[in-house]
């Protein structure tokens, strides 16, 4: 049982699923491809759970597989998971089946089989990204994710999707190119030091010169800032989420974009600890601008999907802020934020999708009074929105307060600026709710129906996760804490002691 290459199975399974779905005989109107795709995504979920069950929280990288791939360049097929990877993998394998269920009819006017196949392919590559422990392998799958993402945006969605897909691709390829240069640079450093190797473990042992380290850091960071995205390279995000289907947006914003912040933790901090600290003031400034700017711009949107997309700019600012505060609370908060943001934003996108399908428009100014006809839809949308604005009792609060604490610890005024995000978040969420959901029933909405069973099945698990981890985040914290501890140790920082020592505690020791 334990000889099984779990992680290879994990990412190969959805890829096989994608191929099977794509090449199944396609009778018009057949649900077979969709069912097959769902089965594969559920199998992947089962493998993810099996990995989580066997995972030992105190034991660093696990389920490692290392095979030489291209010996001359020191490239390996190397996989492994630690707390950071595990949480993102679990989030991914849980979200994909829900997206497939929620988007069951979304691509019926085009090719449902293709939608499912591309979604599974995206899942596969994303899982490989989160499991890769070889920088070259990471780069390859990092770029590979763009193919399914491009087709998901470009083929399914609303008018203007072609432009959005192209814009998405240009930004990502641009970032990828910079990353490529840095990856090659890394090889140079590695081969200079002796045998070249792209293994994370080997690279972390290298003593990279200050200037080189800074250059490489900048290369990685630019790619990840575009991916995440952060101000000012965020404009692809709004266009993409506006034009793509809500299901695609979930895969993009909740899963794919996490590669950016994942990369900052894994590679920027992991490989270039000193350069990361050197760049901190600038990164923190960008993160703060993203938080405030993203929230302001979100408030002004008239398109629900665009609005939700832009709220993520604000949230990625928070995640980045937590990462670069270099404290246990910040690191753990950032990791939890990635997961919680994934869950809350997925719920927002999916329910917004249900709403748009009913109303035939995504313009906030043309939707009103939905609550009176569809109270369950409105209620769940509100819960997801409240999670997004960081209401205590829902999971995103835990991550947000941890990040805020770390920001204040970094510098009091950083915490003071970031905290304005909680007011702005309340404005964009509740104003959106007020405009779309409240008020008298709109004329023509008499026949508006509430959520059906399939739609509920896709979002109720997200709601349960939001509430459960809001009150009891310890399972997530138990997984992420050791990873953050060892990362901070590697970076060489330790948490500040409280300014006022605890007399009571001193007395007992």
């Amino acid at each position, binding site marked *: 049982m334990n000889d099984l290459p779990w992680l290879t199975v994990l990412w190969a399974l959805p890829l096989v699923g994608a191929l099977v779905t794509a090449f199944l005989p396609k009778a018009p109107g057949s649900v077979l491809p969709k069912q097959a795709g769902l089965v594969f995504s559920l199998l992947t979920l089962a493998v993810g759970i099996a990995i989580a069950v066997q995972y030992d929280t105190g034991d660093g990288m696990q389920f490692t597989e290392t095979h030489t791939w291209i010996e001359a360049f020191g490239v390996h097929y190397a996989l492994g998971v630690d707390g950071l990877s595990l949480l993102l993998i679990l989030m991914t394998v849980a979200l994909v089946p829900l997206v497939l269920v929620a988007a069951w009819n979304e691509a019926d006017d085009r090719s449902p089989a293709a939608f499912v196949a591309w979604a599974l392919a995206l899942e596969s590559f994303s899982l490989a990204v989160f499991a890769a422990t070889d920088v070259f392998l990471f780069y390859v799958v990092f770029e590979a994710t763009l193919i399914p993402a491009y087709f998901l945006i470009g083929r399914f969605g609303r008018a203007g999707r072609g432009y959005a897909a192209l814009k998405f691709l240009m930004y990502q390829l641009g970032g990828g190119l910079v990353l490529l240069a840095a990856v090659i640079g890394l090889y140079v450093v590695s081969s200079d030091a002796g045998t070249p190797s792209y293994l994370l473990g080997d690279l972390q042992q290298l003593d990279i010169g200050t200037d080189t380290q800074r250059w490489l850091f900048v290369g990685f960071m630019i790619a990840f800032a575009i991916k995440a995205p952060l101000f000012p390279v965020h404009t692809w995000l709004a266009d993409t989420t506006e034009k793509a289907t809500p299901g695609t947006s979930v895969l993009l914003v909740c899963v794919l974009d996490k590669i950016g912040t994942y990369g900052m933790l894994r590679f920027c901090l992991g490989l270039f600890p000193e350069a990361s600290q050197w760049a901190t003031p600038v990164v923190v400034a960008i993160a703060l601008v993203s938080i405030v700017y993203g929230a302001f711009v979100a408030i002004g949107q008239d398109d629900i999907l665009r609005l939700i997309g832009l709220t993520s700019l604000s949230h990625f600012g928070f995640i980045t802020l937590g990462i670069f505060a270099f404290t246990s609370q910040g690191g753990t908060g950032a990791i939890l934020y990635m997961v919680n943001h994934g869950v809350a934003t997925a719920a927002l996108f999916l329910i917004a999708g249900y709403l748009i399908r009913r109303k035939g428009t995504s313009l906030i100014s043309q939707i009103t009074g939905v609550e009176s006809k569809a109270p369950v839809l409105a209620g769940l949308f509100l819960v997801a929105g409240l999670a997004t604005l960081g209401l205590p009792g829902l999971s995103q609060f835990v991550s947000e307060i941890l990040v805020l604490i770390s920001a204040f610890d970094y510098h009091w005024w950083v915490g003071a600026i970031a905290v*304005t995000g909680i007011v702005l978040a309340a404005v964009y969420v*509740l104003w959106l709710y007020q405009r779309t959901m409240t008020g008298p029933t709109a004329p023509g909405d008499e026949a508006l129906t509430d959520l059906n069973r399939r739609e509920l099945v896709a979002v109720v698990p997200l709601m349960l996760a939001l509430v459960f981890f809001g009150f009891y985040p310890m399972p997530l914290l138990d997984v992420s804490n050791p990873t953050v501890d060892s990362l901070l140790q590697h970076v060489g920082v330790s948490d500040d002691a*409280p300014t006022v020592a605890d007399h009571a505690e001193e007395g007992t020791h």
Partner: protein
Amino acid sequence: MYAFNEGAIPVVDPTSADGVYSLLWLVVALPLAGAAILLVGGRYTDKWGHLLGTLLPIGSFVISLLLFADLLGRDDGDRQIKQHVFDWIQTGHLDVGMDLLYDPLSALFLLLVTGVGSLIHVYSIGYMAHDPRRRRFFGYLNLFVASMLMLVLSENFLGLFLGWEGVGLASYLLIGFWQHKPSAAAAAKKAFVINRVGDMGMSTAIMMLFVTFGSTSFTVISANAAGASETKLTILGFLLLLGACAKSAQFPLQAWLLDAMEGPTPVSALIHAATMVTAGVYLIVRSNFIFELAPDAQTAVVVIALISILWGAAIGCAKDDIKKGLAGSTMSQIGYMMLGAGLGAAGYAFAIFHLLTHGFFKANMFLGAGSVMHGMNDDVDMRHYGALRKMMPVTFLTFAMGYLAIIGFPGFSGFWSKDKIIETALADNWLVGICALLGAGITGFYMTRMMLMTFFGEKRWEREVHPHESPSVMTIPLIVLAALSVLGGVMLAGDWIQDFLAPVVGAGAHDDPPLPALAITTIAVLVVATGVAIAWMLFGRQQVPRTAPQDVSFVTRAAREELYGNQINDGLVVNPSRRLIGGLLLVDKHVVDGTFTGGPLALGDLGGFLRRAQNGFVRTYALSLLGGALLVVLALLAVNLA
């Protein structure tokens, strides 16, 4: 007597819960379970939801009584009990438990919240009988009660914040309960957003507490507060005060409270009068270990309190909407509590005392107003009332008890509690005391005005309105609350409340007031009598016109406009923000996107190119990817060979 040095700041040092105290978590869990069942169960619980929703808070009340009885049997020094329910957040040094603290302060709040809360649940059975969404209403009410109990029971600031936001959510949901009305939906959002401004203060205080003390627990912070610099403690005090101002509708974050009257009247009674809005007072009294060491922050509390007392009273004088009149009065009365809290150890106990008596008489009057509206086809304009005392005798008599209590008629509960605060204020600073006295006079005026316009004079309602007394499910809670409004002062007998709260807030004797206590009381009664007399001249002896006169002085106009609070907010915050957002949208589109997308022109060209290659599109892409990969390998080779 608890061995306690006068002037020393008490430390939170609880023992762990056993015996009857192991039930403590149930106090919160029962109404929380009610909220979950009613809101998740949906229409399947429609038939019995309101009954379950009423029984569960009553269950919490019974447990609270048991706990209180046991607490009274304990020694003064042994009245702090902590229950660790589960680990909440642990990372690095940060270790926050879901911990509950039961001490004299939370004991009183438990009784108030579950007691008055249960009465209002019972009342709502009748009040909401014809509302198709009654079950949901009870779900929200239960959510509120659970959150409020969490707020007052938490042993750390983070858990307090959980309850703090929970009551904010319940308030949002209940103000907007009739959300098909755009005004209700707007009021709900306004309340939440203004409260979020206060939450910035709360959140920042939590961050600063953790960075300073390495903990958010009352136990740790109260033990170590003396080690922190006065500057830090003052900043903490200001941050907490910001939070308190929003939740308690104190100047300058008061503008949401009057709009909040869009909610059903039982909500106004429970949340926006008796309990939630007093959370700010609780916060300051609970954080006494910070404020006692930060005199500047205490001064700020006093200043805010005085402005709020007069501001709220001015609004109360001008409103014709009975609920808004009461809301202005609530702001003003909370100002008195804040004043008591700002006066430090001498005033904490009186702040809580006034909070309790106000909880009784204001809930009483709000429910009375609801009963009046119930009989008047939901009309809230007092100019359409008049002579209702004959039509609604029970409502009239119970309302009158509340009225006598709030104006401070000798012997009624409000007389004792307000008098103590005025006395302490005068001892602290004569100017503060005079402002507090003035507020008492205005209270006498506006409450008499309300009483006369509603229950006395000529009848002014239309022919089709048939005022009638409410059913007994509504009048019985009124009678109970009226009795409490009359008798609440008994808590002061033998200085019971000061002694009872001393282990939490310290035993501070105030300086000697400039006048003997009896003289101050006499002056206060005379000032109130003056206010009552003026109201009688204007509204008792003269006819009240059915429409509000328009040729009024600037002062009246300003008071009707709530002293332009909304206009100030719009001018200073809302409109500039709108303009900023408009500007940012343009910048985002033209500057940021323009720069980084390389101009729409270039992209248009690229799009054109790709369209031409549409047939082989997938192939083109695959090829370019292959080409890219080749490039990578070549680059690596080049580096390798170099």
